[in-house]
């Protein structure tokens, strides 16, 4: 049920994000969703892509520092309270969220929220027990 996210180290200087997106374009990689974590000195580009291994390899070859991170994708109705319904459960179960980002599916009906947990397996178990829709990686990559 887990999703693999690609994390790319980006130096905080002009052109480093452009370089990464250029490599993706040249290798015909499609980005499903992304977010950037930034600090004063560096950023980490987080990507959900259609081909995880290929992305990992081409970015590495281009000289980037790359890692694969395990995240969890949860689908909720795109309406007020959608995210909160998940947070309420996580809070009650004492599950810590390291970070999250989200996107709206093409149909416009649902939103997909990408979570990074300390313990993804346990989080998935709890989310499923509460009848949330956890989107498997394979399905997400091909959206």
């Amino acid at each position, binding site marked *: 049920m887990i999703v693999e996210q690609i*994390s790319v180290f980006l130096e905080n200087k002009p052109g480093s994000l452009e370089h990464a997106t250029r490599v993706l374009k040249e290798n015909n990689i499609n980005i499903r969703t992304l977010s950037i974590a930034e600090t004063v000195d560096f950023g980490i580009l987080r990507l959900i892509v259609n081909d995880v291994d290929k992305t990992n390899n081409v970015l590495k070859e281009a000289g980037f520092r790359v890692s694969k991170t395990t995240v969890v994708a949860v689908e909720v109705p795109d309406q007020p309270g959608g995210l909160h319904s998940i947070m309420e459960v996580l809070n009650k179960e004492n599950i810590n969220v390291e970070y999250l980002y989200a996107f709206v599916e093409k149909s416009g009906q649902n939103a997909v929220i990408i979570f990074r947990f300390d313990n993804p397996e346990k989080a998935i178990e709890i989310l499923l027990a509460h009848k949330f829709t956890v989107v498997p990686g394979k399905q997400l990559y091909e959206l």
Partner: protein
Amino acid sequence: MIYNEEFETLPREALKALQLKRLQQTLQRAYHTIGYYKRSLSATGVSPQDVISLDNLRNLPFTTREDVRKNYPFGLFSVPMSNIVRLHATTGTSGRSSVFSYTRRDIDTWTELNVRSLVAAGVTKNDIVHNAFSYGLLPVGLGVHYGTEKIGASVIPMSDGNTKRQITLLQDFGPTVLCSTPSYALHLAHEGESQGVNMKTLQLRVGIFGGELWSDATRDAIEDAFSIRALNIFGISEIMEPGIACECLEGRHGMHIFEDHFLVETINPQTGEVLPEGDEGELVFTSLTKEAFPLIRYRSGDISRLITEPCRCGRTHVRMERVLKRCDDMLTIRGINIFPGQIEAILQEIEGVSTDYQLIIDKADALDTVELHVEVGEKYFAEAGGVKELQAIEKRIVKDMKDYLSIPPRVKLVAPQTLAQKKAKVIDKRII
């Protein structure tokens, strides 16, 4: 004013005779008590009794900073620890710093040479000395401290840092003498002015500055900022710092080297050949009276020129021009000497970064700023590619640099391509 009239104005001939006698004693002692010197002298086929004139000195091997480090920590000590009353050391990780020691008599010598420097700057027992040289494992602050107390002047042991407090005490205690690195003096001036303090109307009369390379332009700026005379002093941690040379009040014509305690030569740093007095070259010092940690032909790395013309002050000791450059890769940052190899040694111990780095040194508000660019390791990032992990690395680098070198840099993690493109490991943007 001259503190030790007898020795500081000794006629050159008598001085040379004294130097030869003390050199012979130093060589005998080093040869018989320090294994390193026995081996290095034997290897060149010279024994101490072969040295019958000062010219014979050039047949002896040099001692380098690397030699000192190879004998870390106590390998070059000439006396047992029971005779040593003090240990000092430069910054650096184990085996990458120089350790030096003093007997009680060495401390007395060091004190006297600091007294000479202070008296040459006109300091008397009526003065209050604001000593902003660093106190601690590095020797500078304590040297000035002892000298001041010996004169009977009042010393304020400020050390460096706590700038606001320093400005308060400069106003409230009314010190007449300021001792610090030149850059810290300028920083004090800037900070004081920004707090609305008129630094020209403080009680300060004279300042004694050293510990880093500085130019006469900086001297002008300091003299103007505080409305004082600014004098230069010189020392080398391994030999004596401060306490090798000082300026007198006669003007900006070089620092008198205390030749009754140190022999100085000028060499071509590439070939090691001894140059005629007055030529520009690397200064090489031999200690003549140190007991615990004698050094023979110690290569300073400092490029300077000796001035042999007599000085109007009456001292007969040769003068050295201010040091404006070095012939090795030593960097002086905030008065602390560091070497690029020391940074590499620190990075080597930190998981997650490569030992490729770039150090960028600049100045902000007269103080040195240090930025260290370090490359994120591939394997480390692949396994732990998170913000938290990278920030932990940054913190670790800052802490280790602070702990081992006393220089906490601003760390910037960079992508690997960035450093590969850059050739210079050190970019020094400072204007001295």
